[in-house]
């Protein structure tokens, strides 16, 4: 009976989660096609060191170590999850225990110790977000859902850990009482002590209930987590890997070239002949919506876990300007969600999509104009997201397509165009020789 319930719940959770992940996949592909290739060994290096090894987190030791506890506990617990699945499907109890013997005790003990460390880290993270005023968690873009999202994930993590210890603790007491079905598994590092302390005075039936309660609490939370993941900033646990793999390998200072404008200018200057039959109307330049960004920009947006290290490093944000690189990433993601949902509802083709809105409804010129292109945000991101690339594409749209932008830039543009210098000067370019 419980096997059937388990299998049904599992299948429902997988189907539901799958729908969520498919939505993210589709939304990422609202962006323009871009082939990203290059040195594979450098890419593997990024995946192994930055995503798996969390190299960039260690710029800041305290959160890095706390984060590592949760991360390692999460990864290692998958081993126990495997057993929960086997037990769930076949109605067994601790399927691997008899065949693994002492190693089983060691493995579960290891998971338990990591779970305790993860518990401590989770409490610390809740404190950092809700009690200690860590500035990057107090920014306006985190108000509302993003703040709730972060706390939800942390509370789910605590629930997972509570589930594990209810299950193992009650099991331990039942084992020492020699209750049938609860075969000895050796003393687990934490529950050997925690079990008797918490549950030692309870009767067998209550213990069996707690053991099952813990088991179901854990697995149901896992399923809930899985279904929630594609709606949460927590998606970074998966997307960190593709995102670091596809991260650009060029020097950070190098802006993307625009070959279409290069060609146009060369034709204008007589350096190149126009192709016969080429259309003379110019397309829109730069980006004002998810359709004109690259799919990688949108993958960046979905990989963002809103940690705010970019914003904390941003010179504009540090000095009170409206620009926040994290908000730029969140805006792109939220716009992709908005467009994706509307397209899914209307079954329209993305090429025909129009809702009278764009990224400029979310990201204002004031924010774009505050950027010094210093790359501090790019450097700060632990999963190699590039907010600057989006800012620059939107600046291009503003100047090239909307013919807008700060009026103060016009004299500079005119000077470069007419005098070949960034300032209009009356002296010769080599007048410095006489100084």
């Amino acid at each position, binding site marked *: 009976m419980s096997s059937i319930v388990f299998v049904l719940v599992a299948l429902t959770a997988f189907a539901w989660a799958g729908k969520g992940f498919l939505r993210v996949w589709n939304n990422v592909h609202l962006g323009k096609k871009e082939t990203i290739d290059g040195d594979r060994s450098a890419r593997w290096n990024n995946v192994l060191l930055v995503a798996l090894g969390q190299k960039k987190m260690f710029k800041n030791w305290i959160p890095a170590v706390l984060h590592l506890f949760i991360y390692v506990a999460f990864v290692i617990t998958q081993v126990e999850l495997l057993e929960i699945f086997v037990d769930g499907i076949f109605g067994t109890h601790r399927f691997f225990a008899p065949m693994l013997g002492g190693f089983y005790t060691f493995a579960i003990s290891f998971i338990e110790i990591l779970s305790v460390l993860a518990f401590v880290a989770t409490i610390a993270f809740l404190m950092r977000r809700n009690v200690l005023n860590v500035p990057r968690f107090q920014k306006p873009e985190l108000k509302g859902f993003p703040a709730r999202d972060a706390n939800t994930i942390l509370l789910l993590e605590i629930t997972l850990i509570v589930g594990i210890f209810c299950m193992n603790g009650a099991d331990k007491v039942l084992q020492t009482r020699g209750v049938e079905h609860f075969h000895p598994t050796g003393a687990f590092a934490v529950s050997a002590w925690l079990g008797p302390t918490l549950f030692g005075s309870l009767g067998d039936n209550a213990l069996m209930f707690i053991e099952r309660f813990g088991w179901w609490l854990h697995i149901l939370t896992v399923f809930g987590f899985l279904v929630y993941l594609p709606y949460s900033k927590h998606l970074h646990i998966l997307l960190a890997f593709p995102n670091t793999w596809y991260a650009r390998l060029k020097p950070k*200072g*190098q802006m993307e070239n625009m070959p279409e404008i290069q060609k146009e200018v060369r034709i204008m200057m007589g350096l190149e002949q126009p192709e016969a039959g080429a259309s003379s109307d110019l397309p829109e330049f730069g980006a004002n919506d998810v359709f004109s960004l690259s799919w990688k920009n949108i993958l960046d947006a979905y990989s963002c876990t809103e940690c705010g290290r970019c914003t904390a490093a941003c010179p504009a944000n540090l000095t009170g*300007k409206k620009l926040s690189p994290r908000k730029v990433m969140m805006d792109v993601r939220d716009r992709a969600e908005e467009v994706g949902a509307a397209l899914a509802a209307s079954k329209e083709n993305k090429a025909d999509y129009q809702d009278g809105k764009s990224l400029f409804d979310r990201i204002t010129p004031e924010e774009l104009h505050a950027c010094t292109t210093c790359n501090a945000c790019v450097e700060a991101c632990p999963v190699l997201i590039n907010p600057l690339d989006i800012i620059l594409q939107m600046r291009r749209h503003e100047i090239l397509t909307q013919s807008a932008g700060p009026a103060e830039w016009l004299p500079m543009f005119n000077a*470069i165009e007419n005098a070949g*210098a960034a300032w209009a000067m009356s002296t010769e370019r080599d007048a410095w020789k006489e100084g």
Partner: protein
Amino acid sequence: MTLAKTIAEYQSEGRSPEILFWVGCAGSFDTRAQRITRTLCEILNHAGVEFAILGSEERCTGDPARRAGNEFLFQMTAAMNIETLNMYGVQKIVTACPHCFNVLKNEYTALGGNYEVVHHTQLLNELFASGKLKIKEGGSFKGQRITYHDSCYLGRANDVYEAPRALLEALDVDLVEMKRSRKNGLCCGAGGAQMWKEDEPGNKRINIERTEEALDTNPTAVAANCPFCITMLQDGLKAKEKNEQIPVFDLSEMILNNLV
């Protein structure tokens, strides 16, 4: 002897220079940066490097236009520069401006301009290594408490952190790093075409924030590698009424008077 010959003059003599010195707009027109331009010429002459400038044939690389979003203008000015550089068969370029350095090195390649580009702090290191330049024992900066500001376009944009520091080491200064340095260095506030506009509304100017960090190290001088950073830091020090006591130097200026 003239401070710097143009590449056209070299050509009329039937010779080609070892290296082209890309002066840049700041180095050409900004009074403070002009001093750095002359300093670098003097050092190169001292080292016996045969270098040329483009003179009136040099144009803005297009960095501020491109970062502002004006790709048309960037492509125009870039195409003209590349025509000129390729016409003269330029192979190696040195510049004292990290913005020019970045564009020449990373962005002209896609447009048909392939050159070996070095920042002057890198070239100076090469000249020390090859023995063409030598530092005096007990120079004027020996033991002085000096802080160094990483420019974004030399540092994060191109990962050049050590060449400028190696020069400070050669000068035997007591280098005190700011709270944010190297990869985590804080921008001076001028990049991304900010130099040509007022700050957006906020509660502080970026150069003031950076100046405060520099002052926290209690330095006798600030060393920098970019004409725009130097302007921003000097303005910051002026706002703090410290500009009389604490000068901002380009690294080349610290080198010049301490050469054997």
